[in-house]
């Protein structure tokens, strides 16, 4: 299974499908690995956590689900993994419905939860064996050893989980999620409260998994994490998916650029000759700020600079900045909140 995915994970549907490709795997590749339709979740308390969520996750991608606290990220993951029961809607994993055919659906999914929760007195190796068995896989000590070595936990295999450091405990959670060789891995806020070094190490682990063809869905509110790792990004707020888009396209489409022209002498008002550029002026008059769109045919930078120079303004410095995912995210969520 893994090998099959690994071979195909670079495939993008936009490219032409080779005509001689064997039919069955092609269909597998074309169909999304997770498909969610019309998902609603209302908790017993009356709280609506998810409203009409439609989402498709492609094979082998890293999908980042971004959203503020309480947006419904964890509920969405929990519904996919079977931890909470959806009120309405359907979820299918690799073509298997998560309710009617839950055994097949769940057997290929691994979940790393947000909270570190481990049986405190049990040895690391035993907790991992336990998970593998739970998912219906016969014992495979060699595989478990590989996982523990990769996550630098092999030396701690005989330690009770309560004696490990916080970072190690998080890695045990990952080891547990990988114990049954899942094709899909959910990471719910994997690096919340984790130091920089461990965060980097976790990103490397995730990248290695992706190279093997594992589909990865992570929730985070660290934008840099999504920016660094994800192929596609979904933004969720108040239980609704606001947007799902390829990360690069999203940044290009929504990410405007900004040029700041620093002047030697401050100006009191924007000269008439520069009015057509819809510039803004900093309060102290030392800076002119120009917002432009890099996807447009002409950015207008050249004519702006020549107009500035014709006006006789002395330029001290020019800086440009592309809006980060964080800006895009904050804008979107605020827009949603304002509605």
């Amino acid at each position, binding site marked *: 299974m893994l090998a099959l995915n690994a071979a195909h994970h670079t495939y993008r549907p936009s490219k032409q499908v080779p005509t001689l490709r064997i039919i069955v795997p092609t269909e597998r590749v074309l169909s999304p690995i997770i498909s969610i339709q019309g998902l609603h979740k209302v908790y017993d308390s009356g709280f609506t956590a998810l409203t009409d969520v439609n989402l498709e996750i492609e094979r082998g991608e890293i999908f980042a689900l971004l959203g503020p606290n309480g947006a419904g990220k964890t509920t969405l993951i929990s519904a996919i993994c079977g931890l909470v029961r959806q009120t309405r809607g359907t979820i299918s994993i690799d073509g298997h419905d998560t309710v009617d055919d839950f*055994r097949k659906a769940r057997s290929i999914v691994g979940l790393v939860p947000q909270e570190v929760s481990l049986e405190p007195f049990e040895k690391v190796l035993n907790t991992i064996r336990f998970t593998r068995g739970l998912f219906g896989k016969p014992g495979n000590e060699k595989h478990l050893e590989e996982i523990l070595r990769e996550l630098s936990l092999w030396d701690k295999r005989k330690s009770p989980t309560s004696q490990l450091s916080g970072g190690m405990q998080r890695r045990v959670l990952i080891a547990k999620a990988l114990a049954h060789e899942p094709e899909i891995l959910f990471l719910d806020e994997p690096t919340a409260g984790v130091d920089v070094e461990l965060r980097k190490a976790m990103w490397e682990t995730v990248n290695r998994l992706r190279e093997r063809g594992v589909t990865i869905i992570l929730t985070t509110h660290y934008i840099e994490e999504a920016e660094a790792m994800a192929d596609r990004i979904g933004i969720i707020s108040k239980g609704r998916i606001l947007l799902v888009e390829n990360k690069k396209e999203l940044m290009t489409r929504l990410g405007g650029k900004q040029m700041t022209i620093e002047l030697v002498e401050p100006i009191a008002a924007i000269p008439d000759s520069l009015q057509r550029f819809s510039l803004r002026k900093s309060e102290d008059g030392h800076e002119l700020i120009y917002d432009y769109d890099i996807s447009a045919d002409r950015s207008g930078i050249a004519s702006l600079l020549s107009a500035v120079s014709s006006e006789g303004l002395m330029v001290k410095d020019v800086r440009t900045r592309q809006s980060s995912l964080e800006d895009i995210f904050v804008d979107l969520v605020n827009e949603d909140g304002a509605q």
Partner: protein
Amino acid sequence: MNFHAIASIYRFEMSRFFRTIGQSIVSPVLSTSLYFVVFGAAIGSRIEEVDGLDYGAFIVPGLIMLTILTQSVSNAAFGIYFPKFIGTIYEVLSAPISFIEIVIGYVGAAATKSFLIGLIIYITANFFVDLPVNHPGWMLAFMFLTCISFALFGFIIGIWAESFEQLQLVPLLVITPLAFLGGAFYSLSMLPPIWQTISLFNPVVYLISGFRWAFFDQADVPVFASLLAVAAFMLLCLGAIALIFRTGWKVRN
């Protein structure tokens, strides 16, 4: 059926038992010995015979029942409550297993533990009194059924409980009084008629009576009534568990 999962849960739960093996064995052995010292030697010497039996021997089936009832309930309740409490239940809920497998794993382990403890008490009792077992097969069967059905009951409590306090509540307020008033230390015939009738509403009376019959061929109620009572209780618990799992009550909502 996901047999690997059942075995996995069962092994994991049993390892908890064996991790604390000293405590698991010492505590029932000690309390049984204390019962024998107090009821058998101190008080029992003044009670000559009950239903023609030596009092020390008479209380053994009741003692075993008392212990396996409370142990089954608290083991099973704790077994499922603890993962809920520490959060590791997420794994069980996200695994490709049905409730039936979860119940077999957890309840099976809890019942095994209390069954072992029952056997330990039986062995300990042999050091104090002469203890014939007239129907060993039935004795084991009664013990087995009791362990299973009360572990099922404990499992329900573990699912229901939202705090350690609630977890202790039912065993303390329901199981212990029912067991003490269920004829563990006396024969129903020793009670005034009105209390005899009231006692017949206590399900534990049927368990102890049936179990005692397996030892001494003597019973307060007919054996088939005892069997019926255990079977009915077990079905009741199974029904409740099926309902819990169908609705996701306290678990998936």
